[in-house]
């Protein structure tokens, strides 16, 4: 019984979440809003940094003061694991989820775990970035190298991914834990399957002992602070975020000549049948080139 009531509440919540993510307003079914009042709470599972998650919560509660919102932050893989466990136990606690594992979102969709919700915002999304009724991408980004320009001499600015395997970079690099990071795994799977890079590149990069960190937002801040000379893989919106907070920060992004990874990734499996979530927001790491191609198709 609780599931049905909860789903009713979520319809309003996700409509708003969609509007907030896109920065615009959308028509909201008043009946859904009225039903949501009886629930009174929205739980969002998200992999975005704390400030972004809080901004979403604050904006939601401002628009819908009769529903309290809570953002549960974790790495993409942790969210995926939690989702699977909750689905398996038929005790899903979240209402909306967002992470960078597009393949997992699509797997959940295939398994019928995402409830359909027809947001009025779907027409604004190119076909490649939404499955109307089920999920929509919140952004498109390249996975790039992030440098601290005070820690790296200009002649050593990398031009190729392979440049990071040179002895110059030993003990200067950081990387997210590829075991739990959605962006990190998206980077790994693209690099490994690129003929000019492959496992050989990964092996040689490892000789420079990149320090494993936890989360890209924190990693970007540590690069900006000079704790590391460079982050091996970084979604480019973090560069924009750092500059927005401190315009003079000595960081720059590098788009290596071999190209930047395009997101795709895999999840875990579950035999659960139903999830209370109406809509997922998925950070994907497509390049602009891909975005243009998809848009023009």
């Amino acid at each position, binding site marked *: 019984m609780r599931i049905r009531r909860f789903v009713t509440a979520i319809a309003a919540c996700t409509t708003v979440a969609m509007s907030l993510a896109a920065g615009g307003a959308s028509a909201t079914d008043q009946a859904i809003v009225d039903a949501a009042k009886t629930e009174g709470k929205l739980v969002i599972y998200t992999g975005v940094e704390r400030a972004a998650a809080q901004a979403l919560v604050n904006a939601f509660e401002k628009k819908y003061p009769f529903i309290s919102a809570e953002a549960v932050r974790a790495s993409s893989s942790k969210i995926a694991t939690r989702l699977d466990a909750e689905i398996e136990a038929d005790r899903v606690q979240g209402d909306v989820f967002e992470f960078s594992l597009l393949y997992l979102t699509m797997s959940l969709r295939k398994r019928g775990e995402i409830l359909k919700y027809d947001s009025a915002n779907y027409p604004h999304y190119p076909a490649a970035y939404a499955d109307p009724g089920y999920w929509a991408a919140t952004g*498109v980004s390249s996975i790039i190298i992030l440098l601290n320009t005070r820690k790296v001499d200009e002649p050593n600015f990398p031009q190729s991914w392979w440049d990071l395997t040179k002895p110059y970079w030993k003990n200067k690099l950081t990387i997210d834990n590829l075991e739990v990071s959605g962006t990190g795994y998206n980077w790994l799977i693209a690099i490994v399957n690129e003929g000019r890079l492959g496992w050989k590149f990964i092996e040689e990069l490892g000789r420079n002992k990149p320090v*494993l960190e936890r989360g890209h937002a924190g990693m970007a801040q540590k690069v900006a602070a000079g704790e590391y000379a460079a982050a091996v893989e970084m979604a480019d919106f973090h560069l924009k975020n750092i500059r927005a907070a401190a315009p003079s920060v000595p960081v720059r992004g*590098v788009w290596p000549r071999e190209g930047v990874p395009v997101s795709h990734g895999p999840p875990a499996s579950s035999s659960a049948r139903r999830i209370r979530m109406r809509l997922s927001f998925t950070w994907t790491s497509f390049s602009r080139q891909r975005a243009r191609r998809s848009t023009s198709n």
Partner: protein
Amino acid sequence: MGWSSARSDVPGPDIKEAPADVETIKTELSLEEALKVRPGYVAKWKQLWGLGASLPK
């Protein structure tokens, strides 16, 4: 170039040093294949880098 909004009606912010035309690294793996290979890929990465079980979560 750089980060781009997924919505056609909302522009993404510019990143000044981003190239005008980005080369992409494509994978031939389907989403289903990407799902299947994940445990093996992560295990191989950890093995190549000599990483143990206790990684930062």
